[in-house]
């Protein structure tokens, strides 16, 4: 008897609230079982991660230029805490060509995407989330 797979969790962090709505809707359409939380502030998301119990680490979708945690600050903070073993996908509206190679310095970064995210990309990210092992 197979245990019912636990719902995967996705946390989206972006200071653009309209974009949060868009992404939430798009992910909801692709995978209605995905548990999604959204944050405008990076610091709020970090607090949430710190204070919550997860069955398995949630996947993170993070905007590169948050208003409260500029540039790579969010990733720097995330990396210094061992409890955060979350897989991170970076999204950015910037078209600076340096960014993708810089993101490779962070071992928990699993992907780098320029906005807008199309349904194809959302589908790919969802696939990675669903296939990820509980540990």
């Amino acid at each position, binding site marked *: 008897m197979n245990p019912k797979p636990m719902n995967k969790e996705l946390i989206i962090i972006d200071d653009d609230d309209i*974009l949060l709505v868009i992404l939430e809707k798009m992910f909801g359409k692709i995978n209605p079982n995905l548990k999604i939380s959204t944050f405008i502030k990076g610091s709020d998301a970090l607090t949430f991660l710190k204070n919550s119990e997860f069955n398995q680490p949630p996947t993170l979708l993070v905007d590169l230029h948050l208003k409260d945690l500029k540039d790579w600050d969010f990733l720097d903070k995330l990396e210094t805490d061992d409890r955060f073993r979350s897989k991170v996908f970076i999204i950015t509206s910037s*078209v600076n060509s340096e960014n993708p190679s810089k993101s490779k310095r962070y071992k928990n970064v699993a992907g780098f995407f*320029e906005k*807008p995210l199309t349904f194809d990309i959302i589908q790919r990210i969802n696939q990675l989330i669903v296939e990820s092992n509980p540990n």
Partner: protein
Amino acid sequence: MKKDEKPYHILVIEDNLGDFVILEEYLSESILHLEATHAENFKEAVELLEKNERQYDLVFLDLSLPDKSGEELVKEITGRAEEIPVVVLTGFADLEFGSRSLALGASDYLVKDDLSPAVLYKSLIYNIQRVNFISELKDSKKKYADLFQLNPSPILVYDFETLKILDVNEASVQKYGYSREEFLNMDLKDLRPKEDEAILISAVEEFWKKNGKNYKKISRHLKKNGELMDVERSPAKIKINNKDAGMVLINDITENLKYIHKIEEQNQTFKEIAWIQSHVVRAPLARLMGLVNLLEGSEDNLSEDNQKLVEYIKLSAEELDAIIRDISKKSEGIYNES
């Protein structure tokens, strides 16, 4: 003996015609083309020298003429015979004065009673050459003085021990506004703002320790009117009266630096604009494109007309996106070059 074939033109100032004839005869024994002009008294000699129709190679001067003699005569003639050697002819009685005449400007003196063709010829050749050497020496001295004085860049010479200014050229006077006399009462510290004094002291020490090859430094110098300028100093070591001295060539780069700062400021603004392009402007566009994606994936059936409109919005957004990417790419290219 083979005669000297070079032409010589001499002036003989001699009241005794017999002495003149002997002198001419003696010289002709050694010189093939001798032209001897005869002046019988001081007045005639002055006229000939002042007319200056032809350059004399040498003047023979008898010390006692009817209208002038002695010290005064030597002074007047040497004063007029510029760059022409004057050989004084004396009798035994005036032997002592003969040597004094050298101090008055004469090139040589000969005792009349000792004259011989050989002595005369030797004296003539020797004195003509000596004057040539002296004038060549003067020329080269002037040439080097001009290199310093007329150099378009300010040059300062200072004493290494005291930092006192020992010499400046004309360009320094023009650039700094101090007269030469004022400069000579100043030292290097007076050319710097007070707060830069320590920098000066260590810079001078460093230069003298380092044996100073290719030593170039930028510093701030004060003009007399209080204006500050940025200068590039190229120093060199020299000796003046056996003492260590520094010679500094000054290059005013105030305008160049201003220009560079201006470009740097513009570059900064440019970088900001580039960042705004690549991130700030694109953020709402990405959102717009996201909304279009969502509309397209919507399950509610859009009318065919509305589907077309959504398609048009998408095309417009993509066009704008291409423009922003293009600008962003161009500015990145300029970054990497600079």
